[in-house]
């Protein structure tokens, strides 16, 4: 089956309906395992002490905030080029999840920053680009809500998603190339010398997988809802009510 066939709403509803129960169970099990392991089963870090436990909720939330925007970039592009409605609705469905992840990353970062940096926030390039990403999420959600015609809303929000992806990209790589400000360098690395210790690395990977599975489950439920809402709108316009 080609990926484009999933753009058929009927097929999408059928397949996603089958996948959802499994996804919910996997997400709950993975997230619970990762968080419990991270909170109860990891040692203190030499410099950051017990505050390192915030790693297991901060890093996955930040990664999801950026990757969800990347997903919105791709689905928006698909809408603009191929006009598949499911694609535009998936981007719309993902935005509130991405905005929530951004807020959680900002808040947990502030809680972490206070004892380690001595300040919850600093307008350094890394943190600021992440905050601007949050504003793009809000703008994207507000634009969808403000425009009555769904196709026109999809067009304009897709363009906004493309523009905002610059900040998603900046947020993603700012920790690597912007060596100023309070935020530390990237936590994860493929180089074993600079990567974090395995005692933290394994539960962190499980938490990241848990966040990803949770996002997938939420995305499917929310996209199904958007498809139904569009059908409902069509029925209402055809004079049912």
């Amino acid at each position, binding site marked *: 089956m080609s990926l484009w066939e999933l753009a058929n709403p009927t097929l999408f509803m059928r397949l996603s309906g089958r996948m959802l129960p499994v996804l919910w169970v996997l997400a709950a099990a993975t997230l619970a395992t990762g968080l419990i392991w991270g909170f109860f089963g990891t040692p203190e870090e030499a410099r950051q002490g017990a505050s390192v*436990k915030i790693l297991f*909720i901060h890093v996955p*939330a930040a990664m999801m905030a950026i990757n969800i925007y990347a997903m919105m970039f791709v689905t928006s592009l698909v809408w603009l080029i191929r006009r598949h409605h499911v694609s535009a609705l998936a981007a719309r469905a993902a935005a509130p999840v991405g905005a*929530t992840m951004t807020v*959680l990353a900002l808040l947990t970062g502030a809680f972490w920053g206070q004892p380690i940096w001595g300040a919850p926030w600093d307008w350094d390039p890394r943190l600021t680009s992440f905050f601007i990403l949050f504003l793009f999420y809000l703008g994207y959600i507000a634009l969808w809500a403000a425009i009555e015609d769904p196709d026109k809303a999809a067009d304009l929000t897709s363009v906004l998603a493309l523009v905002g992806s610059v900040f998603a990209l900046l947020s993603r790589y700012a920790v690597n190339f912007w060596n100023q400000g309070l935020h530390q360098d990237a936590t994860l690395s493929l180089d074993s010398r600079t990567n974090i210790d395995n005692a933290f690395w394994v539960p962190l990977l499980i938490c990241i997988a848990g966040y990803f599975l949770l996002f997938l489950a939420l995305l499917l439920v929310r996209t199904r809802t958007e498809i*139904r809402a569009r059908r409902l709108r069509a029925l*209402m316009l055809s004079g049912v009510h």
Partner: protein
Amino acid sequence: MPELGKYAFAVLSSYAVTLIGIAVLIAITLWRARKVRRDLARAETMMRRRHE
């Protein structure tokens, strides 16, 4: 409960905010899904009746 020392407030607040945030996100998602599904079923029933 692990010994959190002077970081107890930061760690516990972070976990509390995260768990509450995720719980609210799931609750709103499921609530809206249920509401739209119910409204659509009602609208489809009305349409069917109208065509009969």
